[in-house]
C-alpha cells in the first residue's frame, strides 16, 4: 500500500498538530506543511509524465467501475435497501393479495362451471324440443314426411262409397300403425280432419275428393297392406259396392301436403303443478 511507508510522517503530524509558521523556503522542501498543497497545485498543470499517464489510466478504470456499480445497484434491486420488517410486511401483503386473487379465481371458475352446465342443460332441452317438434310436426301434419308405406287406390264407379267407408279405412290404417296419412295427394289427414258426405262424393276438410281416391300412408308397408285386405276389411267392403281396391307397397312415399294449424280459440292449456 502506497501510504504505509510514510507512517513516521503521519506520526509527526499528529504529534505536532500546530503547523509551524510558513516559511518561504520550507514550502519547496519535502516535509514542509504547505508542501503537499503546493505539489497538488503544481500537479494541476497539464504535464504528461509517465506517472500522470499511469494514474490517469487507473482513474479511468475506477470511474468506469464506479458508474457501472452505481447503475447496477440502481437498476436491479429496488428492495436491497429495505429493512427486514418492511420486506416481511411486503411479503405478507403480497401473499394476502395472492390468496384473494386465488379465491376470486376459484369463485369465477365455479361460476364458469355452473354456466357451462346451464348451457349444457339448455342445449339438451333445445335438442329435446327440436326432436319434439319433429314428432309433433309429423303428428299434426305441419311438416312434410317421407318413408316406407302403402299407396291405396280406390275406384268406385257407382259412387257408392261414402265418408263412413273412407273413415273406416283411415281408422284401420291408423290401427295398423300409420304415422302420416294423405288423401289424393292434397289433404293431410290429422286429428282435426273431418269427412263429410256431399251429393257427388266426399269432402275432406272442405276439399272435394276426386275419383279415384288415393290414400297414401307411411308406416310398416306389410302391416298396412294387411289392414286393407283382411276379411271384412276395406277391400271386401269396396268390392261389395262394385268398386276395386289396389294396394302398392312402396319403400319410399313422400307426403308433402300440410295441415294448417290454427291457434286454439277456446281450449287453453292447464297450468302444470310446479311448472
Amino acid at each position, binding site marked *: *500500500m*502506497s*501510504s504505509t*511507508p*510514510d507512517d513516521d*510522517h*503521519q506520526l509527526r*503530524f499528529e504529534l505536532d498538530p500546530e*503547523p509551524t509558521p510558513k516559511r518561504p523556503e520550507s514550502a519547496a522542501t*519535502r*516535509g514542509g*506543511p*504547505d*508542501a*503537499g*498543497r503546493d*505539489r*497538488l497545485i503544481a*500537479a*494541476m*498543470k*497539464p*504535464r*504528461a509524465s*509517465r*506517472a*500522470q*499517464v*499511469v*494514474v*490517469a*489510466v*487507473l*482513474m*479511468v*478504470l*475506477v*470511474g*468506469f*467501475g*464506479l*458508474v*457501472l*456499480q452505481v*447503475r*447496477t*445497484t440502481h437498476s436491479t434491486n429496488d428492495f436491497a435497501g429495505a429493512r427486514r420488517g418492511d420486506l416481511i410486511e411486503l411479503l405478507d401483503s403480497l401473499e394476502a393479495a395472492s390468496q384473494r386473487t386465488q379465491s376470486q379465481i376459484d369463485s369465477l371458475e365455479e361460476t364458469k362451471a355452473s354456466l357451462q352446465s346451464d348451457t349444457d342443460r339448455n342445449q339438451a332441452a333445445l335438442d329435446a324440443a327440436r326432436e319434439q317438434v319433429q314428432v309433433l310436426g309429423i303428428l299434426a301434419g305441419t311438416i312434410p314426411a317421407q318413408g316406407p308405406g302403402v299407396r291405396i287406390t280406390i275406384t268406385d264407379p257407382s259412387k257408392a262409397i261414402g265418408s263412413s267407408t273412407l273413415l273406416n279405412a283411415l281408422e284401420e290404417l291408423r290401427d295398423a300403425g300409420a304415422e302420416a296419412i294423405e288423401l289424393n295427394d292434397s289433404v293431410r289427414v290429422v286429428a282435426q280432419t273431418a269427412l263429410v258426405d256431399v251429393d257427388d262424393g266426399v269432402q275432406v276438410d272442405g276439399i272435394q275428393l276426386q275419383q279415384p281416391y288415393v290414400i297414401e300412408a307411411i308406416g310398416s308397408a306389410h302391416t298396412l297392406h294387411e289392414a286393407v285386405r283382411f276379411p271384412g276389411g276395406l277391400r271386401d267392403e269396396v268390392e261389395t259396392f262394385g268398386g276395386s281396391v289396389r294396394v302398392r307397397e312402396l319403400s319410399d312415399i313422400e307426403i308433402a301436403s300440410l295441415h294448417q294449424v290454427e291457434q286454439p280459440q277456446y281450449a287453453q292449456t292447464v297450468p302444470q303443478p310446479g311448472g
Partner: protein
Amino acid sequence: MIAAIGLVIGIALGLIFEPSVPVGMQPYLPIAVVAALDAVFGGLRAFLDGIFDDKVFVISFVSNVSIAALIVYLGDQLGVGGQLSTGVIVVLGIRIFSNVAAIRRHVFHA
C-alpha cells in the same frame, strides 16, 4: 490534472456505453471499486507527502482490487461471503478515512 481527466473520462464512458455487469462479476465489483478507491486515496496522500511513486501506486491498486475480490470469492466458497464482504468494506472504509484525514491535514492544515 491528467488523473482527474482520466476519472472524468471513465465516468463518461460508463454513462455512454451503459454496460451491464456480467453475472459472475456482480458480487465482486462493489468490493473491487471500494478497494480501488482506497488505493486512489492512499496514492493521493502519498503524493501530498511527496513520496508518490507510480510503480507503487499501480501495484497497490492492482493488489488491492484483486485481494478484495479474492477475499469475497473465498467467502462465497466458504459460505460467509456476506460477512466477509462487510469485513472488507469496514477495513477499507477505515483506511479511506485515515487517508482522507491525512489529505485533509495537508490541504487545509487542520
